[in-house]
């Protein structure tokens, strides 16, 4: 990020928002201009290329993430490992159920589509199971997803297969380096894709994008308030500690739009403001940076509904519920780069929803999952990491090897 456009010292999220506005304006003002149409088409090449290589990228990223967790963190984190993993996966599931409840209030999406019979809970589980079995046996992306977790875990656990795990880690790192080198292009691509929203869908498209941003803002900000209240009730952190932490980390996450870029300030603030012990802060926040994208997954569900409405694809709450398990898994491997969740989750969602034109779905999804949406998502993701650390330290002291129930920073603040 030290080259190219960053010489202009304009932060990446500002460039994204700026070019998004330029793209929307161009699409509104010149919807039939050949040059503007070509600009839009140029923006579709990169996402379509990602679709071509999606199974390969998802496989290496998830296999690498799984192998890294086993190899590099298990011993260091000790008993914390399984506890943190459980907390983050549970939080991911709760976040998505919470978002689904919000969507039932905010959107007019029916529970089931006309012509579909309203099934009972057992029948619904059977339907989900049948759909996943069918999709898993037919779809390369989901095969890559499940295969990556299994082989990443196996190779990191068996010493004779460690070279394979190292290969996955190296390949995963190379893919992430490649994407980070292309971050300068991300705002340009978003600007080009944004042209398509008003060009293809008119003012209705722009209004739907605005509605998506508003829903993401409401859902993630209420979630943050709930997390603050939960932390105050269930941990020994003071209001001052919690609010100081949020005051430092939330704006940083919002400004960077990427959890990786927020990592340093997150760890420092968790220790200094939130008063977590150094090892608890480091383990919970490093793990969270890798594993926890719960607010991004909330935004993914919201953008799914907005994209479906924009493209005229019928969607129901039962399909949204069906998306929850794969989105939780994808949340564990989504790279912490701005808008990364959109790139890597869109193809899988297209498969699960069985959309008629996958490429159109992905370009629409990526252009919608931009601007303010990843910024609100990252702000929520990163602050949740600190709250998980607080829960670990104060609610599970014995499980993480604390014999004494000590909260030094609180004492210092008092």
């Amino acid at each position, binding site marked *: 990020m030290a080259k190219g456009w960053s010489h202009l010292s304009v932060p990446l999220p500002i460039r994204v928002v700026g070019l998004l506005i330029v793209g929307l304006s161009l699409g509104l003002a010149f919807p039939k201009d050949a040059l503007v149409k070509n600009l839009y088409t140029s923006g579709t*090449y990169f996402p*379509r*290329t*990602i*679709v*071509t*290589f*999606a*199974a*390969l990228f998802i*496989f290496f*990223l998830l296999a690498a*993430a799984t192998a*890294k967790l086993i*190899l*590099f963190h298990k011993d260091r984190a000790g008993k914390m490992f399984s506890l943190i993993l459980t907390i983050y996966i549970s939080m991911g599931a709760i976040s998505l159920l919470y978002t689904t409840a919000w969507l039932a209030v905010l959107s007019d999406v029916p529970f089931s589509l006309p012509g579909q019979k309203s099934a009972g809970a057992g029948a619904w589980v059977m339907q989900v199971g049948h759909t996943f079995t069918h999709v898993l046996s037919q779809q*390369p*992306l989901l*095969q*890559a997803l499940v*295969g*990556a977790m299994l*082989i990443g875990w196996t*190779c990191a656990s068996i010493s004779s*297969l*460690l*070279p*394979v795990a*190292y*290969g*996955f*880690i*190296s390949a*995963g*790192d190379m893919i*992430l380096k490649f994407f980070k080198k292309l971050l300068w292009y991300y705002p340009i691509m978003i600007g080009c894709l944004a042209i398509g929203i008003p060009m293809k869908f008119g003012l209705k498209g722009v209004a739907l994008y605005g509605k998506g941003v508003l829903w993401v803002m409401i859902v993630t900000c209420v979630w943050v308030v709930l997390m603050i209240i939960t932390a105050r009730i269930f941990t020994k952190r003071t209001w001052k500690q919690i609010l100081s932490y949020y005051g430092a980390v939330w704006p940083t996450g919002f400004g960077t739009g990427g*959890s*990786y870029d927020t*990592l340093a300030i997150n760890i420092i603030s968790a220790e200094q403001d939130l008063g977590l012990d150094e090892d608890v802060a480091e383990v919970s926040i*490093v793990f969270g*940076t*890798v594993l926890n994208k719960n607010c991004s997954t909330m935004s993914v569900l919201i953008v799914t509904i907005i994209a479906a409405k924009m493209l005229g694809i019928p969607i129901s709450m039962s399909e949204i519920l069906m998306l929850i398990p794969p989105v939780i898994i994808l949340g564990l*491997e*989504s*790279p*912490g780069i701005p808008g990364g969740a959109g790139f890597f989750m869109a*193809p899988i969602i297209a498969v699960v929803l069985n959309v008629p034109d*996958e*490429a159109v779905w992905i370009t629409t999804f990526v252009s919608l999952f931009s601007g303010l949406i990843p910024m609100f998502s990252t702000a929520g993701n990163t602050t949740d990491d600190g709250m998980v650390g607080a829960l670990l330290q104060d609610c599970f002291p014995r499980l993480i090897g604390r014999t004494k129930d000590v909260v030094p920073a609180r004492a210092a603040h008092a």
Partner: protein
Amino acid sequence: MRRILGIILALVGSWMLVSPQALLGLAQLKWMYKYAFPGEVLIGIVIIAIGFKLMDLKAPKVGKPSH
């Protein structure tokens, strides 16, 4: 020789992960789908693993988390 064979297998396995999905992506690369067959992804994963094993890779340096 083992290393070269490992690289070739890793590339073949990578191809097998890309080819079934190629139909849905970039128009210029759709021709890759012609060579797809059922179960190709899972076989490709195993071939990549064999390739990496033959390459006998060493542990990469652990720095900051990359996700």
